[in-house]
């Protein structure tokens, strides 16, 4: 029998009591449901390939040419290419996750999310999955074309750790995105400005185009608080083993542990904040109405 067939219940409380399996299945369906429009939407108008993949590659190229104008070693060009690829994930987290609940509120959908019998984390996870297709495509394009065009040579000795660090970076980034999604909603209509504020300043302190260790205390602070900074630094050390990338920062193994801690902390905080906004929305009727 289907999980979704209505069964008679003695009371509203009984009706609301779901089995674990039904709970999990409903949340999985909501992940797919929220990812679906993003995936399908991207096939409806292919202009995004030009505007969101090829043109941003040119922006990354601008930084490559800065190093070229300075006759910098090729390794630095590699840093820019890697940074350009990873910035795609940061932008995805900022625009398509952190700002999204506020955006849904503006569109009038947020009330539906709060009244639906699903966890908000499923909705946010669905957004992430849906946005990942285009983001991964952009990252791969920047990485592959950048590597081929600008003659970047990677020197990887620990492929396993590289992959682990990459996925840990993504999980901590999306955990942070969930935290910010609820905070942006609480802070009201400043979400747009906040998202803008989280671009260049974060790129700078995270050392997007140069080894973050060069920033001294600021770099150390970034490594202990911003997943992009620590993830990028670890990836750089692993992708350009034995080079200048390891200047003044912890080893990739230590940074992987930092990422594990960040993932746990951000997911826990996200759960707490999402519960808080859910409570405010359901019990006090706040946050969900457009213009509030």
């Amino acid at each position: 029998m289907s999980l979704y067939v209505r069964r008679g219940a003695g009371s509203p409380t009984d009706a609301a009591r779901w089995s674990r399996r039904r709970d999990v299945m409903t949340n999985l369906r909501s992940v797919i449901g929220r990812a679906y429009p993003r995936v399908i939407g991207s096939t409806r108008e292919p202009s995004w390939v030009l505007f969101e993949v090829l043109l941003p590659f040119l922006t990354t190229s601008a930084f490559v040419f800065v190093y070229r104008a300075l006759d910098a070693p090729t390794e630095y060009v590699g840093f820019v290419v890697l940074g350009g690829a990873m910035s795609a994930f940061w932008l995805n987290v900022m625009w398509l996750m952190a700002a999204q609940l506020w955006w849904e509120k503006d569109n009038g959908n947020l009330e539906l999310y709060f009244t639906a019998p699903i966890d908000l984390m499923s909705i946010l996870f669905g957004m992430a999955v849906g946005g990942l297709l285009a983001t991964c495509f952009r990252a791969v394009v920047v990485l592959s074309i950048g590597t081929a065009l600008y003659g970047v040579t990677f020197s990887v000795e620990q492929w396993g750790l590289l992959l682990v660090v990459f996925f840990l970076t993504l999980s901590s980034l999306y955990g942070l995105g969930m935290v910010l999604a609820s905070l942006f909603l609480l802070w009201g209509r400043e979400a747009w400005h906040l998202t803008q504020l989280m671009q260049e300043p974060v790129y700078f302190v995270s050392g997007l185009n140069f080894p973050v260790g060069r920033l001294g205390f600021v770099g150390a602070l970034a490594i202990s608080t911003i997943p992009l900074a620590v993830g990028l630094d670890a990836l750089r050390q692993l992708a350009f083993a034995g080079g200048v990338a390891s200047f003044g920062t912890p080893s990739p193994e230590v940074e992987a542990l930092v990422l594990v801690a960040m993932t746990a902390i951000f997911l826990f905080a996200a759960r707490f904040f999402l519960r808080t906004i859910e409570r405010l929305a359901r019990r006090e009727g706040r946050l969900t109405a457009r213009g509030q």
Partner: protein
Amino acid sequence: MTGLTPSFDLGRTEGRGLRETFRGYLTAARIGWAVEANWADPILFFTYSVAKPIAAALILVVMLDIVSGGQAPAYRRYVVTGVALWSFVQGGFAGLAMSVLEDRERYRMLKYVYVSPTTFAVALLGRGTARVAIGGMGALTTLAFGALVLGMPVDPARVDVLLFVASMALGLVAIIALGLGMAAVVLQTRQDSWSYPEAVAGAMFLLVGAVFPLAVLPGPVQAIGLVLPLTWWMEGVRRSLFPGGVSAVGGPGSLFTELTGREAPDTPALLLALLGTTLLVTLAAAVAFRVSEHRAKDRGLIDQTSGS
């Protein structure tokens, strides 16, 4: 009869000439400023307006210092001025397109703006003005930061005021014209186009020698850069503020030097190139906007939100 005048005020449908157009422009500019600044927390707004360009400049300064060991002050001036000026481009170029997107997708007001007595392009220009002003604020702050913190003060006695004023005036016209062209594009897009203006601006960042001389680019790419007014605008402003600095256009290996045999363009040639390319871009943008507006009206795109 009620005693009310029976004659219909034609001015309500046909407009009341330049005065009314200017009033519409001012109103749109005020709305633009309100949307951008007044509705935001002032501290956050200030931080956002200033932190972005300063951080962008710092990224490049650190890159520069890592490689040169702080031994390239001329290039540092070049980079910081380029980033400062780029604030105008980000504000002005993206401003008009973002006005279309915000009014259509977010506030759902575009159709009302369109049927109002003010010409649509004038309303958009007004909205874009606020962003140019914010961009100007970012540019000034970045230059001040460069002078006070990064050790690259502007010597007022050496500033070529005439060149500065002429370059800025033409450059701003060019930025607004390019913005109008971008607005024409997003009037047609039916998908999530929020990132488009910034993406195009980012691509131009590569082409106009904002942070490195064009000579490092391949020849055909340099040719594209030389056709864009922003290249000449930046060259003009840089030269007016820091005479004798690094040239974005000329120098060894540049297409300009190869074609003209000169190290760098002289000031009259620079202004002439800026004027010519600005006229070209303005004309192209006006035509593109007219065609786009006509097509959008014809296909009902003005009030069709994409739900993005």
